[in-house]
């Protein structure tokens, strides 16, 4: 029973960083993989993604770094007081070392810092928040920074391996702290590894190491793809999302004894419009309680929940608003968290220029 209840913790603040380059799906370039079955207009109507942020130089760590600097400044946190740094992503700067270690030094955090990477995708933010919350308490840590998102791919050949126009780049920062008397965070989590190949990058890991054939194209459901590219069984993922996300929200509500319809905001992972509309419909949620940022940012993997809060709710959600947030996807993996804002800082969206990519931690 993967239910967790963390008392005396709160989300102190949220920020998000995105590249300042906008790629429009109405005007796709030769680098964008738009199926010939659809016109650009039909693609936008169907997926709900008009444009997204892209960069060939900024990594998740770059975007998360600038988001974190903004958030730390807005919170007025002393960097020496940050006890832990968790980096959740599936686009790490290096295969090794952990990106969290690089970010500890880059952000100028204390060497007395607990830091590690978590590798999980669309459910990453809810997993990260719960892990951060578990470190906090009386006699435990007091301040944790979660950096979360996905951006520049590990592997891309311009003009050959094209960009999927559904996905955008974003790196977010979330500050979680010990705060006595807070109602805290309630969570439900689930996993189904039988769906491991619903979204998968076949080669490049230890199971199937990178080899000369990793770049050979093969037919995957009518598409030419190589084994370093991420492939998705669209129908399976859709079916999983529309069944699992509503169930997870309901389970969380039943277990902790609240009426989920009382929540002020429902932030779902921004998968695609059709899936998200179906999830909201199944839970009978009014449209105004379900903000979405996929129109301008696309699917940003584990960044999508905090990015939605930053881009859609800044200025109206900081105090006394009850949130239910649900992430679901690659793994298959899912989770729902519920919390109520209390003087939560939501930073301005941070736009990062390609020239700001890290140059120091490069060999």
């Amino acid at each position: 029973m993967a239910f967790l209840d963390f008392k005396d913790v709160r989300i102190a603040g949220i920020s998000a960083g995105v590249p300042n380059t906008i790629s429009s799906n109405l005007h796709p370039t030769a680098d964008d993989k738009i199926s010939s079955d659809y016109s650009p207009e039909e693609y936008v109507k169907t997926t709900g993604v008009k444009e997204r942020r892209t960069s060939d130089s900024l990594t998740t760590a770059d975007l998360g770094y600038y988001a974190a600097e903004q958030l730390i400044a807005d919170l007025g946190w002393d960097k020496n007081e940050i006890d832990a740094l968790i980096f959740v992503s599936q686009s790490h700067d290096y295969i090794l070392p952990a990106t969290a270690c690089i970010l500890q030094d880059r952000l100028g955090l204390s060497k007395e810092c607990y830091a590690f990477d978590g590798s999980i995708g669309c459910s990453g933010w809810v997993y990260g928040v719960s892990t951060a919350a578990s470190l906090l308490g009386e006699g435990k840590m007091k301040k944790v920074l979660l950096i979360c998102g996905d951006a520049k791919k590990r592997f891309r050949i311009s003009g050959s391996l094209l960009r999927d126009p559904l996905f955008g780049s974003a790196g977010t920062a979330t500050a979680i702290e010990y705060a006595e008397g807070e109602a805290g965070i309630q969570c439900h989590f689930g996993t189904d590894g039988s769906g491991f190949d619903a979204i998968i990058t076949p080669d490049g890991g230890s199971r199937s190491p990178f080899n000369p054939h990793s770049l050979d194209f093969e037919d995957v459901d009518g598409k030419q793809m190589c084994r370093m590219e991420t492939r998705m069984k669209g129908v399976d993922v859709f079916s999983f999302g529309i069944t699992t996300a509503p169930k997870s929200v309901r389970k969380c509500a039943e277990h902790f004894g609240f009426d989920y319809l009382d929540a002020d905001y429902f932030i779902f992972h921004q998968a695609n419009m059709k899936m998200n509309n179906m999830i909201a419909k199944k839970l009978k949620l009014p449209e105004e309680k379900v903000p979405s940022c996929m129109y301008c940012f696309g699917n940003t993997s584990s960044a999508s929940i905090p990015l939605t809060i930053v881009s859609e709710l800044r200025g109206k959600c900081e105090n006394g608003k009850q949130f239910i947030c649900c992430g679901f996807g690659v793994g298959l993996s899912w989770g729902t968290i519920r919390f109520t804002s209390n003087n939560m800082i939501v930073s301005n969206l941070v736009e990062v220029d390609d020239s700001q990519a890290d140059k120091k931690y490069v060999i």
Partner: protein
Amino acid sequence: MKSLSEFVELFAEQLEETDASEITAATVFHDLEEWSSLIGLSIVAMVDEEFDVALKGDDLKNSVTIEDLYNKVVAKL
């Protein structure tokens, strides 16, 4: 449980351009002019709502007629 004829009717409702009168249990749905992966998602959503069954991509791929798909849904009930 919904009957095959009700399933055929619900299937036809997911189509926008094809006249419902053309749709029967024996319709080879992959051959419909307007069939697309997107209509496939609408079918999956309909089956989820009406039958509480989670179809997979292979269920659609391996069904030839609408009746084949109905039988797959029933097998998962």
